[in-house]
C-alpha cells in the first residue's frame, strides 16, 4: 500500500505540490491526469525518493520514504518506474539492460538473471531483440524494454510517468497493450498519463491534478461521465 499524506514540495519559489493526499491499495490501478505543471510527475519522483519533499510523508508498505534512516536503494527495488524519456542504457544490449540491476543490485548469477530477463522481455514482446543495442530499437520497443527492465526486479509497484508522451502515435498502442497486460495481472500501478481512453478503461480510480492539488478523485465512470468539479469537466473537454 502506498500512502501519501499531505505532501508539499517546492522547487525554489515554485510550489509544485501543495498538500497531496492519496492512498493506493494493493492491486489497484490509479491513473493521474491533469495539465502539464500540475505536479503529477513530481509526485511519482517523490514516491520512490528520487525527489525530496518539504513536508508531509509518504509510506510504502509502512516504510516512510523520506525518513532519515530509510534505505532508499532497498526501497526502490520494490518500486519500478518507467519514464517519459526512454532511458535505455545505450551502451548495453537489451538483455544487458534488463539484467544489470538483477546482477549488480540483487546479486543474482548471470544465468539466473538471464532467465528472469528473457522471461520479462518475452512478456513485453522483445524476445527476439536480446542481443540488440537500444539505438536499433524504435521508441515503442525501447519503452517496452524499460518496462521489462523494471519488471525484472519483481517490484510490488509500478509507476509510469507519461510513458507514451514521447512516442510516435503509431507506437503508443503497443506500449499501452503492455501496460494493460500488466494491470490485468494484478500489478499495483500509478499511471501518470494523457491517454484518457486508457485511463478510463484500465484504472480503478482516476485522480485529476490541478495546481499541485488533487482536484478530484474517483472512479473512471464518475470522473469521465459526471465530474463534480467544473475544472475537471473543462480539462476533460479540452483533451477529449
Amino acid at each position, binding site marked *: 500500500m502506498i500512502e501519501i499524506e499531505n505532501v508539499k514540495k517546492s522547487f525554489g519559489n515554485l510550489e509544485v505540490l501543495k498538500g497531496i493526499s492519496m492512498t493506493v491499495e494493493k492491486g489497484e490501478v490509479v491513473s493521474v491526469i491533469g495539465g502539464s505543471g500540475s505536479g503529477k510527475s513530481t509526485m511519482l519522483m517523490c514516491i520512490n525518493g528520487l525527489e525530496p519533499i518539504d513536508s508531509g510523508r509518504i509510506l510504502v508498505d509502512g516504510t516512510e520514504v523520506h525518513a532519515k534512516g530509510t534505505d532508499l536503494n532497498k526501497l526502490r527495488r520494490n518500486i519500478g518506474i518507467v519514464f517519459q524519456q526512454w532511458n535505455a542504457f545505450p*551502451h548495453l544490449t537489451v538483455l544487458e539492460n534488463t539484467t544489470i*540491476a538483477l546482477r549488480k543490485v540483487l546479486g543474482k548469477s548471470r544465468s539466473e538473471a538471464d532467465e528472469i530477463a528473457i522471461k520479462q522481455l518475452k512478456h513485453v514482446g522483445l524476445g527476439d531483440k536480446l542481443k540488440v543495442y537500444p539505438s536499433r530499437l524504435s521508441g515503442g520497443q525501447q519503452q517496452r524494454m524499460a518496462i521489462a527492465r523494471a519488471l525484472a526486479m519483481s517490484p510490488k509497484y509500478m509507476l509510469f510517468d507519461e510513458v507514451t508522451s514521447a512516442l510516435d502515435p503509431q507506437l503508443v498502442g503497443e506500449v499501452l497493450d503492455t501496460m494493460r497486460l500488466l494491470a490485468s495481472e494484478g500489478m499495483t500501478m500509478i499511471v501518470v498519463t494523457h491517454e484518457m481512453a486508457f485511463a478510463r478503461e484500465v484504472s480503478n480510480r482516476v485522480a485529476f491534478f490541478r495546481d499541485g492539488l488533487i482536484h478530484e478523485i474517483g472512479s473512471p465512470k464518475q470522473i469521465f461521465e459526471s465530474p463534480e468539479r467544473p475544472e475537471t469537466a473543462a480539462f476533460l473537454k479540452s483533451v477529449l
Partner: protein
Amino acid sequence: MFNINYTFHWNQAFRALPQMLEGALVTLQIAVLSMVIGIVIGVLLALAKDSRVAALRWFANIWIEVARNTPALFQVYMIYFGIPAVLQLVAGVFGVNFRALGINIFYLDSYWAVLVGIAFNNAGYLAETFRGGLRAVPPTQTRAARSLGFNAVDSFRLIVLPQMFRAVFHPMTNQMVWAILMTSVGIFVGLNIDLTGVTQELNARTFRTFEFFALAAAIYYVIAKIVTGGARLIAWRLFRY
C-alpha cells in the same frame, strides 16, 4: 660561410636500431603507465571540480590549472627537484626517518620523476576532457539507474562512466600520443633509458646527430601511428552501439 661538409652515415644509426627500439619500449611503458594513472586521477579530479565541497574544488582547480598552463618540462622538474625537497623538509620538521623506510630523500630516480610528472600533466588535461564527457551523459541516465536500486557509486561506475569514456575516447587517444612525445623531456632530468635518452647517448658517442635523431623521430612517429590505429580498433570493438 656555411660548412656543408657533413656527410650522412646512416649505417651507424641503423646498427643502433635495436638499442633505440629498447628505448622506445621504455618510452611506451612510461606513457602507458602515466595514462593509466592519469585516467584514474583525471576522473577523480573531474568529480572533485564539480563537487559541493569547496576544498575539493580548490584542490582540483589548482591541479588542473598548473597542469594545463605550465610547460610539461617544468612539471617534471617540479617533481624531480620538488619531491626530494619536500621530503627533506618533512624529515627536518617532523623528524621522519625516511632512510629507515628505504627512501632516499636527496635523490629521485629520473624514471619516476618523468612518470609522475607526465601522469600529473595527463590527469590535469584529462580531468577537463572528462568533465565535458560527463556533461554528454544525460542526467536521466543516473535517475534511471537510481530508480533500479543502484547506489550512487554503482550508477556512476556502471552506467555513466562507460558512456563518458565513449564520448572522450578520441581526445583520450590524443592525450596518449601527447604523453608519448612528452616523455622526451626526461632528457632534462637525466633519463637515459628512453628513446630520447638512448638517442642522445648514441649522439654523444658518435656525433651523428642528424641521423640518430631523424631515426628517433621516425620511431616516435611510428609509435604514435600505431597507438592511434590501435585506439581506433579498440573503439570499433568496444563501442558497437
